[in-house]
């Protein structure tokens, strides 16, 4: 048993904290929140240069071949700084889906460029009637000629507007199939949604008879579930890392304010109503971190508990982040309700993360299924 970050991971963490403090301060977050594209090429390039886009890509495809936990350390810091942009969708969704489902040739074609930060990708999974349910895929893939025709609508697709390719689950005659659709494909229409969290843009993607060839099939008809599930589990854990980092920051902001804000002649942190709120944040953030590490570790080292761990982590960490951010707003009083204070970005990201990749209701249902059948 050895449950702590190793020296390399601690170094990655420190490096990431410094980078985000210097390169993506809150002025950047605010600007990108309002910006249509949502990030700058300059920041994207610097992140790729640091090797972060390559972390979990196998060395055979010019990646660094690191573990999910190593990446989680970076994502925790990204969450802490509510970093805007398509890093998560590229690395965890587009990259993750491709790495889990693609053939050697497909991976050779795309992953080295993704690792180098030259292309971006995402996952077009959710359908209008799915709600928070990840298992509901009805979009049809009709076999035609040598290939398939995709017809239907995907919603809440993160960062599709800046992606070079989409991983698309759809139903062929023989079952769930995963496709790789390049964003130039004709019949594909991407439009952004006015979402609450402007730091991670969500889009509607319409497939108006998009024709794809055989070479666009990542997982053959009927073979899509397993790789999709593996990619989703890893992405869910990645999202938990963001949640823990974001909540940590919200807690620090609240606790620092509780020390300095004086009312009734004493720091408000002396009032137990406030002190206990802060203590509760600490309890939840620290225990969520314990669950996060377990879930990240399990994805690479304990296949038998990986599914359970991802769902436990997603249900707990995402709700924890929302509670912590909301509680921090209460500690901050009127200031916390203002646009000027940064805390609202955390609440908004928390709500987005809660809803993404299976909401807590979905994950608890999965847990119940694993416990009781």
């Amino acid at each position: 048993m050895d449950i702590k970050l190793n020296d390399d991971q601690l170094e990655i963490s420190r490096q990431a904290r410094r980078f985000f403090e210097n390169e993506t301060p809150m002025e950047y977050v605010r600007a990108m929140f309002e910006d249509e594209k949502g990030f700058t090429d300059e920041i994207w390039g610097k992140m790729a240069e640091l090797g972060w886009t390559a972390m979990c890509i196998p060395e055979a495809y010019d990646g660094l071949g690191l573990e999910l936990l190593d990446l989680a350390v970076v994502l925790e810091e990204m969450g802490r700084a509510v970093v805007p942009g398509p890093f998560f969708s590229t690395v965890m969704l587009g990259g993750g889906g491709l790495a889990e489902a693609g053939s050697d040739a497909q991976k050779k074609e795309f992953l080295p460029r993704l690792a180098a930060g030259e292309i971006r990708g995402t996952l077009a999974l959710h359908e209008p009637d799915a709600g928070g349910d990840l298992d509901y895929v009805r979009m049809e893939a009709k076999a035609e000629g040598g290939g398939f025709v995709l017809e239907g609508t995907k919603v809440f697709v993160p960062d599709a507007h800046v992606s070079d390719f989409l991983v698309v689950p759809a139903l062929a005659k023989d079952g769930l199939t995963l496709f790789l659709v390049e964003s130039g494909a004709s019949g594909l229409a991407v439009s952004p949604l006015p979402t609450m969290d402007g730091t991670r843009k969500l889009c509607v993607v319409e497939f108006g008879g998009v024709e794809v060839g055989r070479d666009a099939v990542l997982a053959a008809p009927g073979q899509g579930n397993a790789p999709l599930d593996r990619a989703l589990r890893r992405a869910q854990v990645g999202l938990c890392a963001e949640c823990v980092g974001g909540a940590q920051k919200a807690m620090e902001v609240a606790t620092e304010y509780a020390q300095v804000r004086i009312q009734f002649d004493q720091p408000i942190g002396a009032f137990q109503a406030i002190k206990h709120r802060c203590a509760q944040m600490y309890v939840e953030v620290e225990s969520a971190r314990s669950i996060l590490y377990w879930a990240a570790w399990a994805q690479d080292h304990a296949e038998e508990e990986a599914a359970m761990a991802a769902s436990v982590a997603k249900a707990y960490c995402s709700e924890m982040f929302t509670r912590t951010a909301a509680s921090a707003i209460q500690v901050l009083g009127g200031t916390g309700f203002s646009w000027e204070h940064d805390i609202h970005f955390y609440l908004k990201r928390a709500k987005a993360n809660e809803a993404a990749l299976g909401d807590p209701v979905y994950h608890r249902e999965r847990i119940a299924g694993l416990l009781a059948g």
Partner: protein
Amino acid sequence: MDYRFSPEEEAFRQEFISWLDDNLPEGWDPSRYQNYPRDDELAAAYRAFQKRLFDAGYAGMHYPKEYGGQGRGLVHEVIVMQTLANQCLELRIPGVITFGMAAPTILYCGNEEQKSTYIPRILDGTHIWCQGFSEPNAGSDVVNVSTRAVRDGDHYIVNGQKVWTSYAHLADYCILLVRTDPDAKKHRGLSYLLLDMKLPGVEIRPIKQITGDADFNEVYMEDVRVPVSMRVGEEGDGWRIAITTLMFERVLGDATMAAAYERNIERMTQMASRVRRGGKPVIENPVFRQQLAQAYVEVMVLKYHGLRNLSHQLQGGIPGPEGSIGKLLWSEPNQRITEAALAMQGPGGQVMRGSPWSIQDGFWQYAFLRAKGNTIEAGTSEIQRNIIGERVLGLPKDSSRAARQ
């Protein structure tokens, strides 16, 4: 990072599990919530079972060999505790304070004679200990202890009253917090004694509790002569000893509770597939499926947070006030979990044990009531949050408590 126990440790677990299969008391039925409804019988079963553990080399895995322990380290102790909590928690209950508080205090702070006299008797089940800290006017504010110990040659003469003393009626000894210097600043005037419960002047009166049982007591002491050799540490050092030693054993408590709750989740899952609502098993109801899953989530949080702390301690980390997290993580979820279990039972949740209509032998009815004590015993939730707020996060004390310093 590695969340697994080593192969050697897992082999030890398997070895212990198979030993346990053959060595649980005759007639032991794991499906019953109480195998020993009478607590004198429970105490006798505890002593006999502890002796068996001791003889087989499973008692005090992390205690030094010279005091009857196994000298094998904390991980092995955790494995034993987890296994016992999972399989036969009831049999451990009379030993909770003995192992959780008395033994570590004596081991870390006692003198040679105290260690060699009492630790072996604890490990082999001869002695049960109780904890005499709380008094009518010293609950959360335990430094307010007013039980007096006045020096008389090589004895202290002890007068006063303790309350809520769990298992005092079964115990041989008591770890007793007393005031030796009424003039010193509150916490400096306290000393820590080991009290033989059979001494003249000790009187025990049971207190019936919310569950109907009488696990705890009032303990009255009138001119009780306690030898000075029974003092742990220096005179005036009682408070420091009381708060510091206990932190080291906290990881064991967290691991134990997580293992016991994992068992309860299995119990709950079985219950939910048998109990019906509208003719259908409760487990098919989406609301109760959510509650079952949430219960499981909270147990996993306790488990993996506990393991992370354990690992920290194994690598030489000193446990500090952040240990209060563990107390909150086992007490508050247990209330939510037992509430959910009763909710699943609908009106059937009203039936206590002893009827053909009882569900799972009334386990959850008892557990629901008992859980209400969890957020009070061993430092209330409010006190734990004060500790975290002030000692971990550095928030100021409220003005009245600050003024007292």
